[in-house]
């Protein structure tokens, strides 16, 4: 009895048939989809990793920091009271200061974890946007 490896007739027989063919425009359809995929990948690549929103928030944050530094240098509390005499700004400023004091008392490890976590998210986003495939 022949083994499947020895069955040359069957091989010949099967090789003589024509396989089922897809529609004549199959290659065209696939290539159109491939080009679409490529366009999407290129668009993602062209997009900045950090969007406009991030830069606006960062600018506002830097601005806020700058204002805070300038304000902490000079005693502006009385001026504020002058500008807005009917509002007790000192009350708000003390609340604001105590918030940042408490924030500053946070353990370094928490700050480190937050920073590392942010870095990982940033790195993941950066690498996935540079990957040629889109999943």
């Amino acid at each position, binding site marked *: *009895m*022949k*083994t*499947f490896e020895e*069955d040359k*007739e*069957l*091989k010949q*027989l*099967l*090789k*003589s*048939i*024509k*396989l*089922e*063919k*897809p*529609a004549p425009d*199959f*290659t065209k*359809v*696939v*290539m159109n*989809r*491939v*080009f679409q*995929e*490529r366009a999407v990948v290129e668009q993602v690549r062209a997009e900045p990793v950090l969007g406009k929103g991030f830069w606006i928030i960062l600018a506002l944050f830097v601005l806020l920091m700058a204002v805070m530094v300038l304000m902490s240098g000079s005693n502006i509390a009385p001026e504020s009271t002058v500008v807005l005499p009917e509002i007790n700004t000192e009350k708000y400023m003390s609340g604001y200061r105590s918030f940042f004091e408490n924030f500053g008392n946070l353990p370094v490890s928490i700050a480190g974890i937050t920073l590392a976590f942010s870095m990982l998210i940033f790195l993941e986003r950066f690498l996935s946007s540079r990957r*040629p*495939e*889109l*999943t």
Partner: protein
Amino acid sequence: MEKKDDNYYIEKVINGQTNYFSYIVEKYQDIVFSIALKVLRNREDAEEMAQESFIKAYKSLHTFKGNAKFSTWIYRITYNTCISEVRKKKIHFTSADDVQIKDETEEMNLDGIPAENREKIIKAALDKLPEDEYTLVLLYYFEEQSIVEICKVTGLTESNAKVKLHRARKKLHTLLNEMMKDDLYTIL
């Protein structure tokens, strides 16, 4: 024009010359479509899944290391894509597992059958095989893939693939002999 091997086109595509992917599609579309058609048993679904398989292959082309044959890689993508689709749609097909395998059906003589009928008979016999056996037969005899390569495509173990191939071959012999008899009776 000189025919280049698959790796030449793959490298071109990876380096940004996407249009070279059409050579790969042209070369493998018939067998990819045949596998999809056998698994899904519907031309429309098969065409969609064949397209999907090529898109998947394109997207992960950079992961193709070239250790195995590209054909093995694309057939595995096709087979897995189609099997997943069948599972997703919860399609249940009744296969021709009830074919009585006869031990004496070793020799085949198709000489008396006209060529146009011969192809029809072979296709009809192949059509009666379950999709896993059809894929094994197609890859082994038609595509001349090795058992190791077939195992990579289907996920079967070597011994399992050999047993299935042996069974599929016997079944095919039985079916072909029965069909040839029917065809001869019709001619006579």
